[in-house]
C-alpha cells in the first residue's frame, strides 16, 4: 500500500488531498464600512491566470480521472438503453394508460430546471452588478448547457418513434402539415431551443478572452491551433472590449426574461391542460422558483468538490458558497410557499376534484413521494438559518444533494399523482417505473457529469478576465479605505489642534 502511494505521488497532486496553496479563509464576516475580499490568498492577475490555466495545462489528477471514468461508465447506460428503447418502443418504459408521462417528462423538467441557476448567476446577477458571480459563472453556465443537453434528449426519445422527432420543428411533414402552434408542447420546443442557443452563445462569448489566454500560453501546436481557432484572434483590444462589453450586457438583458420564460413555458405544458392538480395559475412562478432552487443546489454539488480538487478555495471562497446557500434557503421557502398556496387554492376554489387531487397528493398512494419532496425541499434548507451551517462545506454539500433529490421528486409528484388519479376513478392506476426508466435516468446523470468533467479539463474553469476586474476593484477599494482612514485621522488631529 505504501509502495503504491509512493508510485502514485507524481500523479497525486496536492490539490487532491487538500491543497496547501489555497487554504480555506473565512471571508464571510460582515463589516459595514468595507467590502469583503471576494478573492482571498493575496492573488493578483498573474497568480490567478497561472492557477486557472494550470487546471487545463497540467496533467490531469487522479481525482479527475476517477470522476471522469465513473461518469463515463454511467453514461454507457444510455448507450445500452436508448437503442433498446428505440428498437422496442416506449413499451420498455413503465408508462401505462392513465400515466402516459413517466420518467421522461420528470427528467426533462428536472434537467431544464437545473440549467436555470447558471443563467441566473450569469445574467441576472450580472445585471444586478453582483461581483461574486465572477468566480462561479463559467462553471454554472457550463452546467446550464450540459443540463439542457440532458433535458433535450428526453423529448427526442420519448416521442417513441425517434425518427419522427423532426415533427417538433417548424417543418412540414409528409402530408405538408405544419406543427400545431396552438399547443404548449410546441412552445416548449421554441423555449428550450432558444434557451440552449442563447446560453451557448453567452457562455462561448464570455470565454473568448480566456481562450485567448490559453492560446497565448500554449506550448504545443495542437493547443495553439485549437485555442487559437476558438479565441477568434482576440487581442484584448480596448476598442473590441468596448463592443464586447456592450454585447455581453445585451445578452445578459436578453437572457434574463428568457430564463424566466423557459420554465414558465415548461409549466404551461401542465397548466394549460385540464388535469386536476395541473390546471393552476401559480405554476409559472412556482416552476421558476423551483428551477432556480434546484439549479443552485446542483451548482453547489459540482463546485464544492471542484474547488477542493483544483485548489480554488481562494477563488471560489466561503463567501461565494454562503451567498449561494442564502439563495437556496430563499428559493426553498418560495417553493414551500407555493406548495401551501396550491392547497389553499384547492380548498378556496371549491372545485371538488381539485381538492381531491391535493389531498391525494399528500395522503394518497404517492404520499411517500410527496413527503420526500417536502422534507428535502422545505425542511432541509432551513438549516441555513444558522451561519455555522451555511459556511460548513460538508453541511452544504449534503443539503445540496437533498435538494437535488427533492426537486426530482417534486416533478415526479406533479406529473404522476395528477395523471394516476384524475376525474374517473375507473381509469386510475399505479405507475411503477421499469428498468429502462431508471437506467436512462441514471445515464442522463452520466452524460451530465461526463460533459462537466471534460469541461473542467479543456476549458477555462473560472472567468479569468472577469476575476481580474474584481481584483482591480478590490485593490481600488482598499486604497480608498486607506485614504479615508488617513484623512479621518488627519481631520481628527486637525480639529483637536483648533480646539
Amino acid at each position: 500500500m505504501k509502495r503504491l502511494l509512493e508510485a502514485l505521488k507524481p500523479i497525486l497532486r496536492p490539490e487532491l488531498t487538500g491543497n496547501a496553496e489555497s487554504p480555506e479563509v473565512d471571508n464571510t464576516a460582515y463589516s459595514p464600512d468595507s467590502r469583503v475580499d471576494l478573492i482571498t490568498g493575496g492573488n493578483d492577475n498573474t497568480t490567478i491566470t497561472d492557477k486557472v490555466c494550470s487546471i487545463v495545462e497540467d496533467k490531469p489528477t487522479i481525482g479527475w480521472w476517477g470522476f471522469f471514468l465513473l461518469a463515463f461508465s454511467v453514461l454507457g447506460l444510455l448507450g445500452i438503453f436508448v437503442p433498446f428503447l428505440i428498437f422496442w418502443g416506449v413499451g420498455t418504459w413503465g408508462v401505462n394508460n392513465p400515466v402516459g408521462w413517466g420518467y421522461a417528462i420528470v427528467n426533462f423538467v428536472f434537467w431544464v430546471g437545473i440549467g436555470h441557476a447558471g443563467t441566473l448567476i450569469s445574467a441576472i446577477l450580472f445585471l444586478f452588478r453582483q461581483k461574486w458571480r465572477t468566480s462561479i459563472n463559467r462553471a454554472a453556465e457550463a452546467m446550464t448547457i450540459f443540463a439542457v443537453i440532458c433535458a433535450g434528449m428526453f423529448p427526442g426519445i420519448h416521442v417513441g418513434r425517434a425518427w419522427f422527432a423532426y415533427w417538433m420543428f417548424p417543418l412540414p411533414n409528409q402530408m405538408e402539415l405544419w406543427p400545431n402552434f396552438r399547443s404548449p408542447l410546441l412552445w416548449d420546443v421554441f423555449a428550450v431551443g432558444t434557451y440552449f442557443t442563447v446560453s451557448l452563445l453567452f457562455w462561448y462569448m464570455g470565454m473568448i478572452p480566456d481562450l485567448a489566454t490559453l492560446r497565448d500560453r500554449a506550448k504545443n501546436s495542437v493547443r495553439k491551433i485549437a485555442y487559437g481557432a476558438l479565441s477568434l484572434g482576440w487581442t484584448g483590444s480596448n476598442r473590441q472590449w468596448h463592443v464586447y462589453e456592450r454585447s455581453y450586457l445585451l445578452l445578459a438583458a436578453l437572457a434574463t426574461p428568457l430564463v424566466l420564460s423557459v420554465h414558465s413555458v415548461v409549466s404551461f405544458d401542465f397548466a394549460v391542460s385540464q388535469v386536476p392538480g395541473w390546471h393552476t395559475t401559480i405554476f409559472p412562478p412556482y416552476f421558476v422558483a423551483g428551477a432556480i432552487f434546484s439549479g443552485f443546489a446542483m451548482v453547489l454539488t459540482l463546485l464544492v468538490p471542484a474547488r477542493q480538487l483544483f485548489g480554488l478555495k481562494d477563488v471560489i471562497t466561503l463567501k461565494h458558497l454562503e451567498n449561494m446557500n442564502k439563495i437556496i434557503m430563499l428559493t426553498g421557502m418560495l417553493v414551500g410557499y407555493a406548495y401551501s398556496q396550491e392547497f389553499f387554492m384547492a380548498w378556496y376554489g371549491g372545485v371538488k376534484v381539485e381538492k381531491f387531487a391535493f389531498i391525494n397528493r399528500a395522503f394518497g398512494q404517492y404520499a411517500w413521494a410527496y413527503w420526500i419532496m417536502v422534507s428535502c425541499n422545505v425542511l432541509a434548507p432551513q438549516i441555513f438559518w444558522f451561519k455555522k451551517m451555511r459556511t460548513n462545506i460538508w453541511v452544504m454539500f449534503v443539503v445540496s444533494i437533498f435538494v437535488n433529490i427533492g426537486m426530482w421528486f417534486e416533478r415526479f409528484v406533479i406529473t404522476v399523482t395528477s395523471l394516476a388519479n384524475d376525474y374517473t376513478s375507473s381509469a386510475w392506476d399505479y405507475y411503477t417505473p421499469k428498468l429502462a426508466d431508471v437506467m436512462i435516468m441514471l445515464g442522463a446523470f452520466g452524460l451530465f457529469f461526463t460533459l462537466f468533467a471534460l469541461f473542467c479539463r479543456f476549458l477555462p474553469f473560472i472567468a479569468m478576465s472577469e476575476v481580474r476586474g474584481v481584483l482591480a476593484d478590490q485593490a481600488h477599494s482598499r486604497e480608498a479605505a486607506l485614504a479615508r482612514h488617513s484623512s479621518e485621522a488627519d481631520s481628527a488631529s486637525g480639529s483637536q489642534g483648533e480646539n
Partner: protein
Amino acid sequence: MNAEMNGSVEVHTITAETATDAKAVLMLAEFETADQLMDAATSMRDKGFKLWDCHTPYPVHGLDTAMGIRPTLLPWIVLCGGITGFCGGLLMQGWMNAVDYPFLISGKPFFSIPASIPVAFELTILLSAFASFGGMLALNGLPRFYRPHFRSDRFRRATADRFFISIDGRDRQFDIGANSRFLRDLGANAVEVIEE
C-alpha cells in the same frame, strides 16, 4: 542591422537606423499597471493619434473615455434583430396554421395573438441574441486569426497580466523614434516594433 529586426525581435533603444518606418507595421508599448495605461491613453488621445489601441487582460473601467471611443451601434443592430424575430414569429405561425394548411384543433381559432405570443417572444430573444453576438463579431472584425501583434512574445501577456498600447504603422503620426520616446515618457517599460 535589419536582419536583427525580422520577426518579433525586440528593439529596446530605437533609432532611425535600426528600424525603418517603411517596414514597420506596428509599435507595441508595454505597461505594468492599468493606471499607467490609463494616463498614457489619455495622452495618446490628446496627441491626436487615430489608428491606435490599448490591449488589456480585462476591460478596464474608464479606458473608453480616456481613449475617446464613441458609443457602439450595437444596440440598434440588436433592436432590429428583436423586431425581426417578433414579427417573423407572428407571421410564421399565422401563415403555417391559418394560411398554408389551416386545420381546426379543439375549436381554437386558426390564428390568435395570445396563443402566438410564447413562440414570438422566444424568437425575439433568439434573433436579438444572434444579432448581439454576430454584431459584436462584425463590428470587431472577428474572427481574424492573424494579427501582427502575435509576432511579439512579450504581447502574450496582454491576455494575462500586462497592459499594452499599439500604434498602427498606417497612422499619420507614426514615427518610430518620436513615438518610442513619447511612450517611454508615458511610463512604458518596453517598446517593440513589429516589422513586415
